[in-house]
Each structure stands twice: as C-alpha cells, then as structure tokens.
C-alpha cells in the first residue's frame, strides 16, 4: 500500500509519508474485521499527470479490542500525481461528512 503514496506526500495537517504509514499501521494493528463502503463523488483529471479524487468512505465492521471505531462516514479529497507509470497519492484532506475538511 505504501507504494501508492508518493515520497513527496504532505498535507495540511502536517503529515508526511511516514505519518500516513503510521496511520496504516494503526489500522492493521487494531482491526479484527472491517469493511469499508466507498462512494466516488468526483474525479478530476488535469492534463497527463495530475488528478483529484473525492471519496466518501463509511466503515462497517467489528473489533475484538476494547475500543471500537467511530461509525461516522468521512469525506476524503485526494490529490494524485503520475510519477512514471504510476499514480501516487501526494496529498489528502479529510473530515467527517458534514464537518470541516482539512
């Protein structure tokens, strides 16, 4: 999965690529069984090597741990660039649906 994240990744929260990897680690180490419901809201392509992707993601699943996941859905706004033959995530903003996205 990290191969999909650009080495130049940065976002408004101050996250860099390593921070995204940390988030993935948190998911992998937390969840027992989880399903994501995704809805593509928009795709915008700019020229040959840039694109934006708006996603709404909901989560449904179970967890054997003490703490559960929030049931809220999140809106993601992702920026992608083509590096070589691959499209990589270079920035993203997100927030709970109906709330502020940053």
């Amino acid at each position: 999965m990290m191969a999909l994240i650009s080495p130049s990744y940065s976002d408004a929260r101050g996250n860099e690529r390593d921070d995204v990897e940390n988030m993935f680690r948190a998911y992998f180490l937390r969840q027992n069984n989880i399903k994501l419901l995704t809805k593509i809201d928009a795709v915008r392509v700019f020229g040959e090597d840039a694109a934006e992707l708006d996603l709404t993601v909901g989560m449904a699943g179970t967890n054997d741990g003490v703490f559960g996941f929030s049931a809220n859905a999140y809106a993601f706004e992702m920026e992608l660039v083509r590096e070589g033959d691959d499209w990589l995530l270079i920035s993203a903003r997100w927030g709970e649906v109906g709330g502020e996205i940053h």
Partner: protein
Amino acid sequence: MARYTNPVLLLLAAFTLSGCAVTQLAIESPLVSLKRVDVAEVGFSRQTFVLSFDVINPNPFSLPINHVSYGVKLDKQRFASGESVASFSIPANSDGEFAISVDLDLLRTAPQLLYIVRDSAVHDVAYELSGKFGVDIPFVDSVPFQYNGDIRLQAGLVTRATNHSSDKTP
C-alpha cells in the same frame, strides 16, 4: 510501452487491502498521570494553574492527538476540568508530556478546595485524573484515560506528584 494505471482503481484497491487486515491486537489506552501543578497566578477572584501531564503510549504506532478533555479531582473534590484543542503526537512505545493552563475561581466555586490545597503542603493528597484524547486518525474513536495518584504541594507553589495506581477505562 507505457502502463497507465487508473488512480481510482488504485486507491480503491488500497482501501480494500486495508479492509483485509486481520489481527487480534487493539489500541491500548495511553497511560496519563499528573506530573506537576504549577500555580502561575494567584488572585482574589482568579487562580491560574498549569497542569503538566506525563503520557506513555504503549502502542506500536504513534498517536496524533488533536483534542484533550480532562477532569482532575483532589481528595475527591472536583478541582479542574475542561477541553482543549491540541496538536501533538505521542511517539510509538514511548512517552511524552503536555500541559494545560486552567483559570479557576476557587473562592466562589469550591472554597473547600482551598483547605485541601493548603493541607497538601504537608500531606499527600489523593488525585483522580480522567479524560479522553481525540486521535487524528479517521474512524478512530477518542481514547479514554484514567489515573489515580498522590500529590503534594511543594515550596514555591509547585506541586509534584507521586503515582501509585492506574485504572484503564473500559
């Protein structure tokens, strides 16, 4: 020949892969204790305290914190509580600290606490700390914490804490 991969499919694949993870581990609540209470300002109608906390993250990943809510009791009397926007990260399997400034009017709201604070200059006073961390990771709930310990007022209006027990909030 160049290979162009659909970015939408790639991202969806990434999400799908993340949904396949199966493990028995769960996030563990950070261990938070009251390290120190500094009296920054004492006035007739307002007293400003700076509460300093030690926090240990037992998880193998860092916790980016964006919100802290807390409550502190001294000798079972509510001393301070509140919420604060935060922007710090607790490293994986490591510790850190943070501080919160609180303004109180003990004469009006809790005069009995004045006696407790005065007595804590010569006796340990039990404290109870509880609260929640808001974690800046999508879909992750707030993480609660709770800790009990003792605290004593030191010379120079600085209190230092000794901690002897902890309870994790289920």
